[in-house]
């Protein structure tokens, strides 16, 4: 093929958004069509499905194919694009009778509980009746056709992608309206006689003819942009315009005429629709999908086996040792040292991503478990953890201390200190679990573990029993006591009473200890455990736990503090403040900020929510319960902020490990070539795509938090209006955090852990 033609044909727009939307629509339609066609084969024959899918394909071709790429160079191509959007895709879609298949293709709960109230809403019925009135439909089509071809507006759309999309959307939706009364897709009905569609189409054809004639017979170029554009293929702009007119005139008239003929033929020879067609037997209801990860091949086997966990922990232990050695003996410059790169640029995003897409994966593979096991064998700690410390308060204090140290001593910039933190961690685990029995370090001390416990409240996976009936018939309680060398749960989570992920390390000990193979890693709706507050094994009700609420608040506010600590306006302001106070370092001001954000703000939040709850006197929702549960409802928003922050580091410094790894290997005589330090430069990836993704993550976090807040309040408040009033102050606060988060994302950020280019 001629290379120019070949290149032209390869000029497709890369539009994943569009593809995802169309593919999802097609999938939902086909799912619904398949289920309905069984009962209504005469209403929904196969050609209907083919028609609908063809409509989607034509739409995709119109907006993503080379037609779009050449629309700015040739008016005729642009008109062909509009022809597909207005005269081909809409009738094909309506011929697929999409209303019921699209509804039936949705999950039943979404259809019934989600869309049901809207579909029954009289206002929506009135809007629909107005929009599908034939006069409105006809006018919509004609108005969008003429208005968008006014030269000023047309040129605006040609040069500005946003307005081009708006133009296409109005053509498409205007045409959907136009074709609706013509096809009158079942189950819709019209009070107008079908014969009225003959003049309807005829008048549309007349105006289309007049419109096309304007292009064909005009003696001047209507759109100056085409006059300025380079001419390809030897056509002048005026010749191009005449062909464009012909494109609209001939195929457009053909479609309208064909539609008129089919309509008239159908009216003259009506077929009887047989609504009572015999029903085919419906298929047996499907078993719910098995969402148990432990039943998956390979992955399930690895997770269940004791050696699988050991291998994961050993691998991370070796990696941690390498980081420690490099931290102590490697280069002092953080971006050149494994201790400056692996924990801060890689490990943190992987932990958060793991929490969001699966569960507490880091604790499952925690390297600190190995020395803990060694400690137990050597010392065999048998003392119970002090009852005064059986809460999260110690961990809250350690977490605040860690975040303070991170900011004030710039941990991320000191491989040496990073190595010491890791060593301290190993030492702490060894000592605590060498003295005390159970997994006291994990449950009461480890700040990383607490972060993961709280984060995993919104995870989509949960370790729980497959069948409570099996547990009721079981008398061994091996899941907590252990069995034949397999330890039970060291965190005292008795599986039949275990709810959610708090305090669960995903260690799989209970899986191996259960004699009935009744424990799985099961899928659930993310964050669903925060919608209610049942008593939980070894945890109790979250509504009564100030310590857990404090932990959640520190993690939420810590997310915003940690991200704000690296944006230029905040850092600059803190430096200015330090200077004006005559301080030689910013440490005192940073300390004050940490205290304000992680101590004062959570206290104020808790006190205000408690006061509000006490004042309202809601049943089953006293001040403490309301404050604790609303604090936990903020977790999705906080986790979203952590995810955004780490995502930026990862996207910018994702290649940093390569030169640092090469350098480390070279240091021990395993040279793999000179490190390419250019890979360690901050890429400054602040493109629109990344920013959009970050804001979307924050959007989802806010929406999940607001939903959880609603679920906390709604059961205790009878009327809708009062429930919104009760939640309003908290929702305003969550929205304020969201606005702060968006503001932080918009600021220039320090590219920590990377060499700066230039």
């Amino acid at each position, binding site marked *: 093929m001629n290379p120019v033609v070949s*290149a032209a044909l390869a000029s497709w727009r890369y539009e994943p958004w569009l593809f995802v939307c169309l593919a999802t629509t097609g999938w939902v339609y086909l799912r619904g069509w398949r289920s309905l066609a069984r009962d209504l084969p005469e209403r929904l024959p196969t050609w209907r499905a083919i028609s609908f899918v063809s409509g989607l394909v034509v739409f995709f071709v119109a907006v993503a194919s080379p037609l779009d790429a050449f629309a700015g160079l040739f008016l005729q191509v642009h008109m062909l694009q509009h022809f597909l959007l207005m005269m081909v895709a809409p009738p094909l879609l309506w011929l697929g009778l999409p209303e019921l298949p699209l509804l039936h293709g949705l999950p039943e709960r979404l259809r019934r509980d989600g869309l049901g109230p809207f579909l029954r809403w009289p206002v929506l019925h009135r809007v629909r009746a107005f929009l599908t009135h034939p006069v409105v439909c006809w006018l919509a089509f004609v108005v969008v056709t003429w208005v968008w071809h006014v030269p000023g507006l047309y040129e605006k759309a040609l040069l500005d992608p946003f307005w081009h999309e708006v133009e296409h959307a109005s053509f498409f939706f205007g045409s959907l309206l136009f074709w609706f009364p013509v096809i009158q897709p079942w189950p819709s009905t019209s009070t107008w006689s079908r014969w009225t569609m003959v003049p309807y189409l005829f008048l549309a054809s007349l105006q289309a003819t007049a419109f096309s004639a304007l292009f064909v017979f005009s003696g001047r170029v209507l759109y100056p942009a085409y006059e300025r554009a380079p001419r390809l293929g030897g056509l002048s702009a005026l010749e191009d315009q005449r062909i464009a007119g012909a494109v609209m005139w001939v195929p457009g008239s053909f479609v309208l005429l064909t539609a008129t003929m089919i309509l008239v033929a159908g009216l003259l020879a009506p077929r009887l629709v047989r609504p009572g067609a015999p029903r085919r037997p419906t298929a047996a209801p499907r078993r719910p*999908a098995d969402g148990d990860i432990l039943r998956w091949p390979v992955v399930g086997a690895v997770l269940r086996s004791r050696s699988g966990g050991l291998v994961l922990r050993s691998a991370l232990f070796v990696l941690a040792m390498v980081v420690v050695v490099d931290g102590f003996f490697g280069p002092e410059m953080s971006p050149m040292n494994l201790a400056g790169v692996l924990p801060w640029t890689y490990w943190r995003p992987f932990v958060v991503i793991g929490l969001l897409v699966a569960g507490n994966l880091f604790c499952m593979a925690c390297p600190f478990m190995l020395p803990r096991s060694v400690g137990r064998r050597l010392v065999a700690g048998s003392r119970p953890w002090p009852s005064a410390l059986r809460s999260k308060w110690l961990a809250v204090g350690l977490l605040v201390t860690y975040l303070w140290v991170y900011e004030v001593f710039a941990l991320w910039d000191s491989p040496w200190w990073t190595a010491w933190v890791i060593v301290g961690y190993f030492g702490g685990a060894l000592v605590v679990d060498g003295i005390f029995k159970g997994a006291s370090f994990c449950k009461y001390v480890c700040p990383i573990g607490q972060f993961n416990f709280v984060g995993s409240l919104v995870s989509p996976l949960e370790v729980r029993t497959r069948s409570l009936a099996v547990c009721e018939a079981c008398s061994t309680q091996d899941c907590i006591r252990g069995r034949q060398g397999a330890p039970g749960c060291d965190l005292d989570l008795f599986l039949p009473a275990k709810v959610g992920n708090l305090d669960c390390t995903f260690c799989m000990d209970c899986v191996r200890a259960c004699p009935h193979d009744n424990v799985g890693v099961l899928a659930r709706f993310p964050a669903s455990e925060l919608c209610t507050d049942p008593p939980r094994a070894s945890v109790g009700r979250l509504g009564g736990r100030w310590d857990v609420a404090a932990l959640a608040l520190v993690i939420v506010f810590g997310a915003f503090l940690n991200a704000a600590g690296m944006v230029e306006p905040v850092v600059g302001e803190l430096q200015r403040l330090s200077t004006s106070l005559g301080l030689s370092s910013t440490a005192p001001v940073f300390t004050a900020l940490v205290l304000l954000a992680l101590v004062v703000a959570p206290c104020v939040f808790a006190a205000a929510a408690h006061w509000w709850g006490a004042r309202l006197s809601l049943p089953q929702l006293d001040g403490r319960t309301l404050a604790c549960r609303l604090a936990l409802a903020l977790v999705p928003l906080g986790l979203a902020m952590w995810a955004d922050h780490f995502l930026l580091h990862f996207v910018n410094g994702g290649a940093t490990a390569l030169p640092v790894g090469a350098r480390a290997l070279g240091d021990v005589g395993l040279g793999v070539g000179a490190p390419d330090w250019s890979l360690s430069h901050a890429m400054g990836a602040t493109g629109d795509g990344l920013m959009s993704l970050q804001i979307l993550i924050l959007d989802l976090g806010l929406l999940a938090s607001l939903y959880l807040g609603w679920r906390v309040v709604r059961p205790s408040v009878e009327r809708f209006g009062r429930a919104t009033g009760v939640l309003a102050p908290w929702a305003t606060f969550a929205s304020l955090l969201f606005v702060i988060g968006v503001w932080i994302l918009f600021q220039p950020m320090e590219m920590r852990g990377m060499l700066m280019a230039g």
Partner: protein
Amino acid sequence: MSGFRVFAAATLLAVATTAGADGGAVVAQAESDALVVTVFVAPVPLRAGPADVSVLVQSAGDGNSILDAEVSVLLSREGGVVARAYADHAQATNQLLYAARVEVPAPGAWRLDVAVERGEERVTVGAALKAAPGLAAPVRFWPWVLLPIVVAGSFLVHQWLSDS
């Protein structure tokens, strides 16, 4: 559940990726014995921030597109060169064009120079550009920022309808 996750993953992927862009307004055109070069710049009007420069190279004889030229783009102002980039087909949607993305650091007057080389033939075309101030981030990303209001509002209407 799995369908939801696939959809969510695909959505995130879709948001995370950016499409190649080209087109915009013609800002310069030059012709030599063998080549005709047309330069497009987007957005229209040009603003401080990322800008797309697209170049169409045609044969002066028959007007056919030429696909094997080397195209470089230079953005400068009185203080000196601020951005230099090679334009190629990989960055363009329309595969007949050569495209490059350059960052216009600030509003004001700029000069854009495009050099096209093909064998012995070399054409240079320059254009004076005037960049308006860049759009503030909240304006650029307003659909994403306002999304929660739309969803939360719909949810409240839904709850109100369910209640009544």
